[in-house]
């Protein structure tokens, strides 16, 4: 029973992290049909911004330490928006409607450039910002298991982000407009929807989500060059399992991969990596469009 509980909680914690990383990627693809390889860079920029701001805040040794959580969120919001808007307005808007393969190549180049930009800005020394992680202490689950409260809080934050995304897409006018663009871009333009503005907003939201994932992960890790490249492969695995462009799919993919990985770590540690990509293989073998993806009609 204890083992099962541990598997469930570990799986939920990992799934929430995966969803945070993958959500922005899938939103951008859903609306813009851009498979954004540079998403890992948003994660890295979020992590670096948060780590340097939190480090600066605690170096002053004054003020309420709980404000550091606002710094984590604020840094992700500012860094993600600035970088996202700059990239969309300065580069991607000239490529709207181009072949998806070209977009992959362009965003991959962007990933490499941003990787070097982060090194130019923050250097190669590791950044540490573990105060917010330790501040919340531990929480007992079922009297036998103890988890870092920060990790459990991550589940709550992720659920909140997921619900907000669902609510905005399904229950607000802007969300309906966005779905109209996803459904048929040309009709949306004909109906007077400002698709260019929609793209900018969507890309900014995606990059903020990527930066947020990095900022919320920063307190638990050592922030070093290359962290963005490492997450992008996992994010793709999750998004592909769930179905490209589907928020619900990203959530399902994250839960599936998270739980499978947790079972592997507890039952067969040697199989961990295999299990993650094994899930992807199985899903793609039976549903090539992913769990929640739609089959696209190809017009010849």
């Amino acid at each position, binding site marked *: 029973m*204890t*083992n099962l509980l*541990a*598997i469930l*909680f*570990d*799986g939920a*914690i*990992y799934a929430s*992290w995966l969803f945070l990383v993958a959500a922005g990627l899938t939103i951008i693809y859903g609306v813009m049909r851009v498979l954004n390889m540079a998403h890992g860079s948003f994660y890295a920029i979020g992590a670096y911004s948060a780590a340097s701001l939190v480090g600066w805040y605690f170096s002053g040794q004054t003020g309420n330490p709980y404000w550091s959580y606002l710094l984590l969120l604020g840094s992700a919001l500012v860094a993600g928006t600035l970088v996202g808007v700059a990239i969309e*307005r*300065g580069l991607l*808007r*000239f490529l709207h409607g181009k072949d998806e393969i070209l977009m992959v190549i362009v965003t991959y180049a962007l990933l490499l450039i941003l*990787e*070097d930009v982060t*090194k130019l800005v923050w250097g*190669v*020394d*590791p950044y*540490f910002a*573990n*105060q917010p*992680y*330790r501040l919340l*202490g*531990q929480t007992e689950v079922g009297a036998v*298991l*103890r*988890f*870092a409260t*920060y*990790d459990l809080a991550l589940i709550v934050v992720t659920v909140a982000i997921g619900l907000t995304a669902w609510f905005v897409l399904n229950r607000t006018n802007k969300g309906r407009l966005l779905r109209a663009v996803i459904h048929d871009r040309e009709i949306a333009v004909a109906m007077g929807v400002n698709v260019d503005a929609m793209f900018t907003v969507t890309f900014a939201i995606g990059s903020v989500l990527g930066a947020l994932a990095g900022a919320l*992960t920063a*307190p*638990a*890790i*050592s922030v*070093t*060059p*290359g*962290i963005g*490249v*490492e*997450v992008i492969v996992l994010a793709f695995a999750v998004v592909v399992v769930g179905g490209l462009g589907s928020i619900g799919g990203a959530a399902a993919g994250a839960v599936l991969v998270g739980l499978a*990985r*947790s079972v592997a*770590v*507890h039952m067969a*540690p*040697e199989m*961990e*990596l295999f299990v993650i990509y094994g899930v992807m293989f199985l899903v793609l073998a039976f549903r090539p469009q992913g769990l929640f993806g739609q089959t696209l009609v190809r017009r010849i």
Partner: protein
Amino acid sequence: MFPSIRTWLRQTKTAQADRSPWLRARQHLWAMAALFGLTWPLAAQARIEFGVSAASADATIGCMFPLAGRAAIYGRDSIAGMKLALADLAAEVKVGQVPRLRILVEDDRSKASVATRIAEQFIERDKVRFLCGVVSSGVAQAVSRVSRTRQVIMVGTDHASSRLTIEDFHRHYFRVSNDTWTSMAAGARFLAAAQKKDGWRRLAFIGPDYDYGHVAWRDLEQALAVLNVTHEVTAHLWPRLYEPDYTAYIARLKAAKPDIIVTALWGGDFIAFLKQALAAGLLEKSRLANFDTGGNYDVLASLGEQPPAGLILSARHHNNWPATARNRKFVNDFHRLEGRFPTYAAEGAYAGIIAIGRALATAGHHADNEKLIRVLEGMHLSLPEDPDGTVSHIDPETHQIVQAQAIGEVVADTAFAPARLMLGRWTVYRAEELQPPLDLVRSRRAKAGATDSIPGVRRPPRSTL
């Protein structure tokens, strides 16, 4: 701004259509020249060169380190360490015998394919006489194969898998930093002593899922077996390299209820694991030991102010041990050069250049490989990590440097800011205690079908160490 760029592009296109092919070709040439000019500084940065010029060099050394990505700090520290070694060689070796060294460094991007290509280019284009460096054990194996095939001496400075000096041993490969066997042999002795004191029995291991991690685990098990330490393995876990979330592993370790957890996670991975383990209370019931890399300066700097209980750490070089004039000089010189304190990678690279320099000084600046190999085998070197009264030496049987190792506990120490905690309360193991037994070396080589072993026992008698 952007619409105007678009208009400009359109105008340029129209204008181009009216021009002659010669004019268009000239425009393309200008564009290519401009592009070359813009990217030249970046291309130039891809290779770092120091020491003497190619024309006046007695030997060119081609080194491969990661200069980007997670391990970039180790590459950067290695370069600084090598610069210090050049200065120290000039001061220590007799006038007239100091070899003029030219050092080339390229970014191997921690990839075997890239490092192999660089090594081949070093040999073909730059005519290097030595290959050196490499942080990742996996990458080092690939470069070692180049060294074996091309018969160019390789001096490893910062990778640790004992496979390179045991199963994959060949005459052209030498290593001047501690390997996994050395660290795990010291760890096994520490654990044996701890067992006598508190009777621990349950052991768990967590290491990165690649050659280094698996070899470290095998070395620990074999070193414990050599010492007859009875224990029960309650878990061995293999997270992928660069794993950001260790929650599941920590829960699994807690469920395994080990008395002691040994880890071979390193760098950012060890820091992330440690942060998460401390926050989840893993160290409240188990002790955590990292005998090979855990005491590295970047780890200690990440720990903050409060020394966590239950941590047992060591590393391949310590900034505050041994407290000898030589080690103090090395650390202070590094600080003067870089404005910060070194990770252990710096001392490994330093030792590599010292070893090459001394080999050339002894064998002759233009000595052939055979002579250099004979000089390197059994060479005695005084290095920053040698306690007073001892010197490191290269084991002729394995070509692995043999050094004393110290294992410590985390204590408050503000002498090496920004770190506020350093290692202290040392347990020191003599170099000769940490060599793999000859029969073990040979049985591992035989099992792996190794073909390039050295005939006969050539180790110096222990009393001479």
